[in-house]
C-alpha cells in the first residue's frame, strides 16, 4: 500500500513535471510567435530583441505559466487522492477474502489427514492379516533397496526373523550370489532395476539364499511403488518353487522318456482324442502305415483299419490285444495286432493304440503250421512205411515157412483122395474141405506176399476208363449176385496214364469188393473218371496217402462211391493198416487196402477214402497224366 502510493506519487510528479515542461515549451513557442507578430505590426520595434524584454509579453507569459502549473498540479493532487482511496478500499477486500480462503484450506487439510489416517488404519487392519498369512514372501523396499517391511513368510522362506530383515539391503540378504556361487552385481539385479527404472520384473530362474547358507529356487515379482509420479520404493513378492521345479523336471524327464520311447519303438504308437482324431503319431506308425506325421495328425484313427473293421466298438477292446486287418496309405491290407488303452486329461478321454505289423509273424505261423502238417503227414507215412516194411519182412518169412507145410498137406490130401474108394462120400467131403482150407490159407499168404513183394511194375500208357471197365468185369459175378446197381460215369478221351494194368485192376477189384461188402442190402455203386488241372493244393478230406502232385499238374482220377455203411472216424485212420478188418474171419483179411495203397503209391498216385455227406464212402484215386510229346 505504501509502495504503491509512493510509486504512484513519484510517477505522478514525473508525469506532472513532464506535462509542465511540455506546456512551458509550448508557451515559449507562443512567445516567439507573438514576438514575430509584434515585429510585423510594429515596424519600429528593434529586430532580434528578446520577447521577454517586452513587458506585456513577459507579464502574459508569467500569468499563463502560473495558471498552467497550478491547474496541472491541482489535477494531479485530486487524481492522486482518489486513486489512493480506491486502492485502499480494494486491498482491504482482498485481505478479507484471502483470510477466508486460508481458513477453508486449513479445514480441508485436517479432513484429508483424517481420511488418510482412517484409510491407513483400514489398510493396516485389512492388509496385515493378509500379508501375515500370505504363503508368498513379501518385502517392501525403500529407495535405497533396504528392506522396510517383510511379512512372516519372507522370514520363514529366507530362514531368518522379520526383525533381522528390516533395514537390511535386500540384494545382500536375498541374492548376493547366483545359483552357481558367482557374485551377483547389484546392477544386474532386476529388483534394483525396478527401483532404478520403475519397471516390474518377474523372474523364475534364480535362487534366494537362506541365512544358513543354503539356497532355493525362487520365483519373484518386483513392482515399483510410485507416489505422485516418483518412485518411492518397491515390493518384492517371492515363493519357493523347489517342488514346482522338481515337478517340471520330472515332467520334462518323463516327456523326454516318453518321446524317446515312442520315437524309437518299431511299433506304431498312436493316440487319438474322444472324437477319434489322431493327436500323436510316432515314427513306427509312419513306417507301418506310410503316412507322415503331418498327414496323420487330425485324421480319424479308423482310417488305419480295413473298411470292415471300422465300425467295431472300441470299448470292449480296451486293455486287450486284438488282431485286425490294417490299411496302409497305398491301399494294401495287412494283419496287425492292436493293444488299446485309454487315459483321461483335462481335455477329456484319449485313446492310445500300440500297433504291430504281424504280417511276417502270420506268414511264419502259416509256414510253421504247414510244415507241421507236412511233418505230421510225413511222420504218419514213415510210421506206416515202417509198419509196412516190418510186416513185409515178416510176411515173406511167414509165407515161406507156411507154404511148405501147406504143400505137404495138399500133396497128402491129393494122395489120400486117390487112395479112397470112390464110394466113400463122407471121406471125400472131408478131404475136399481140407483142400479148401489149404487154398484159403494159401490165399492169405499170397495177399501178404503181394503186399510185401518189392514189386516191379510193368508200366504202359493206359486209359483209366478202360482199366476201370475191365476191373468191373472181374467182379461181375459178385455184382450180379448182390442187389447193387452200378452207375458208370466214365470220361472218354482221358489223357493216358502210365500204369501196370494188372496191378491197378487188383486195386479196383479191392475197392469194388469193399463197396459191395458195405452194401449187403443192396445200393448203388457209382464209378466215375475224369481229368483235371490241380489249382489248389490238397483235395478231399479223409485218410490220405502221400501227395505227389504239384499245382498245375494234370491228374486223371477215378472215384468209386457207394451208399453203404460208411466208416467210423476212428476206423478211418486204420483202414490202410495191414490186417485191419471189421469183417468176420474168412470174409476179409484186412490186407485189401494195405496192398491197394501200396500199389497206388508205387505208381506215384494218391488214394483218398472218406465218408460222403450223403452217406456211404467215396474212394478217390489219382494219377498224374502222362506228359504229351
Amino acid at each position, binding site marked *: 500500500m505504501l509502495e504503491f502510493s509512493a510509486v504512484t506519487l513519484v510517477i505522478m510528479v514525473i508525469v506532472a513535471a513532464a506535462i509542465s515542461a511540455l506546456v512551458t515549451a509550448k508557451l515559449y513557442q507562443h512567445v516567439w510567435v507573438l514576438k514575430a507578430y509584434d515585429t510585423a505590426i510594429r515596424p519600429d520595434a528593434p529586430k532580434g530583441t528578446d520577447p521577454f524584454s517586452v513587458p506585456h509579453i513577459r507579464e502574459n507569459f508569467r500569468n499563463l505559466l502560473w495558471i498552467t502549473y497550478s491547474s496541472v498540479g491541482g489535477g494531479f493532487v485530486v487524481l492522486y487522492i482518489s486513486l489512493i482511496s480506491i486502492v485502499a478500499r480494494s486491498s482491504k477486500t482482498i485481505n478479507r477474502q484471502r483470510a477466508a480462503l486460508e481458513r477453508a484450506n486449513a479445514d480441508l487439510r485436517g479432513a484429508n489427514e483424517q481420511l488418510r489416517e482412517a484409510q491407513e488404519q483400514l489398510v493396516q487392519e485389512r492388509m496385515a492379516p493378509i500379508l501375515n498369512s500370505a504363503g508368498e514372501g513379501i518385502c517392501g523396499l525403500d529407495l535405497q533397496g533396504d528392506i522396510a517391511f517383510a511379512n512372516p513368510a519372507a522370514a520363514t522362506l529366507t530362514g531368518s526373523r522379520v526383525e533381522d530383515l528390516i533395514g537390511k539391503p535386500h540384494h545382500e540378504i536375498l541374492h548376493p550370489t547366483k545359483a552357481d556361487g558367482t557374485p551377483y552385481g547389484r546392477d544386474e539385479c532386476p529388483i534394483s532395476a525396478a527401483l532404478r527404472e520403475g519397471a516390474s520384473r518377474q523372474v523364475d530362474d534364480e535362487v534366494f539364499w537362506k541365512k544358513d547358507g543354503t539356497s532355493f529356487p525362487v520365483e519373484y515379482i518386483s513392482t515399483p511403488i510410485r507416489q505422485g509420479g516418483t518412485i518411492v520404493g518397491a515390493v518384492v513378492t517371492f515363493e519357493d518353487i523347489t517342488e514346482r521345479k522338481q515337478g517340471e523336471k520330472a515332467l520334462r524327464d518323463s516327456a523326454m522318456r516318453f518321446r524317446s520311447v515312442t520315437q524309437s519303438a518299431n511299433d506304431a504308437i498312436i493316440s487319438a482324442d474322444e472324437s477319434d482324431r489322431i493327436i500323436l503319431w510316432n515314427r513306427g506308425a509312419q513306417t507301418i502305415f506310410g503316412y507322415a506325421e503331418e498327414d496323420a495328425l487330425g485324421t480319424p484313427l479308423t482310417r488305419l483299419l480295413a473298411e470292415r473293421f471300422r465300425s467295431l466298438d472300441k470299448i470292449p477292446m480296451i486293455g486287450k490285444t486284438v488282431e485286425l486287418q490294417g490299411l496302409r496309405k497305398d491301399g494294401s491290407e495287412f494283419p496287425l495286432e492292436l493293444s488299446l488303452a485309454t487315459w483321461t486329461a483335462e481335455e477329456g478321454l484319449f485313446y492310445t493304440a500300440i500297433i504291430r505289423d504281424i504280417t511276417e509273424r502270420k506268414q511264419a505261423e502259416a509256414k510253421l503250421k504247414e510244415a507241421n502238417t507236412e511233418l505230421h503227414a510225413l511222420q504218419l507215412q514213415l510210421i506206416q512205411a515202417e509198419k509196412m516194411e516190418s510186416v513185409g519182412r515178416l510176411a515173406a518169412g511167414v*509165407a*515161406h515157412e507156411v*507154404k*511148405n507145410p*501147406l*504143400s*505137404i*498137406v*495138399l*500133396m*497128402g490130401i*491129393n*494122395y489120400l483122395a*486117390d*487112395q479112397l474108394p470112390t464110394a466113400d462120400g463122407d471121406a471125400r467131403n472131408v478131404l475136399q474141405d481140407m*483142400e479148401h482150407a*489149404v487154398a484159403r490159407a*494159401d490165399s492169405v499168404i*499170397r495177399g501178404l*506176399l*503181394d503186399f510185401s*513183394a518189392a514189386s516191379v511194375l510193368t508200366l504202359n500208357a493206359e486209359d483209366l476208363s478202360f482199366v476201370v471197365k475191365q476191373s468191373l468185369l472181374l467182379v461181375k459175378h459178385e455184382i450180379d449176385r448182390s442187389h447193387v446197381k452200378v452207375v458208370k460215369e466214365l470220361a472218354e478221351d482221358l489223357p493216358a496214364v502210365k500204369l501196370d494194368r494188372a496191378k491197378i485192376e487188383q486195386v479196383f477189384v479191392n475197392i469194388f469188393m469193399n463197396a459191395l461188402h458195405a452194401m449187403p442190402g443192396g445200393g448203388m455203386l457209382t464209378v466215375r473218371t475224369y481229368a483235371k488241372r490241380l489249382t489248389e493244393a490238397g483235395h478231399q478230406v479223409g485218410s490220405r496217402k502221400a501227395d505227389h502232385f504239384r499245382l498245375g499238374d494234370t491228374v486223371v482220377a477215378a472215384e468209386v462211391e457207394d451208399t453203404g455203411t460208411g466208416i467210423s472216424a476212428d476206423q478211418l485212420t486204420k483202414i490202410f493198416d495191414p490186417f485191419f478188418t471189421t469183417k468176420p474171419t474168412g470174409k476179409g483179411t484186412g490186407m485189401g487196402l494195405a496192398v491197394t495203397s501200396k500199389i497206388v503209391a508205387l505208381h506215384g498216385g494218391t488214394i483218398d477214402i472218406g465218408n460222403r455227406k450223403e452217406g456211404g464212402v467215396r474212394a478217390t484215386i489219382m494219377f498224374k497224366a502222362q506228359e504229351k510229346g
Partner: protein
Amino acid sequence: MTMDKKRILLIDDEPSFTRMLRLNLERTGTYEVREENRGAQGLAAAREFKPDLILLDVIMPDADGGTVAAQIKADQSLKNTPVVFLTAVVTKKEEGVIGGRPFIAKPVSANEVIGCIEKHLAR
C-alpha cells in the same frame, strides 16, 4: 514096362514133402521117383540116378537150389536134363518162366505138378 517109366529126381530139404510127392507121382504108374533131401547131395544123386527131369527146391539149409541147378548145368552128362524149380519163394502169380527158368509155386496140387512134368518131357 519099367523101362518106359520116366525117372524123376526130387531135391527138397523137406522129407515129408518129397515122400508125398513121390507117392502121388508113383500112383500114376508112369514115373520112377528118387528123393534127395540134402541139397549138397543133389548133383551126386543126379549123376547116379540119371533122371529125365529134376524137381528142385530153392531154399534148402545146406545148398540152395540155384547152386545145385548150376552144378547140374555144368555136368556134361546132365546139362540137357530139364530142371523145374518147385518153391515157395515165388507166388502163384509169378510162377512160370522167370529169368529163363521154369518155376512152380508151392503149395501146389499133385495134378498141377504132373501137368508141368508132362509139358517139359514133351519137349
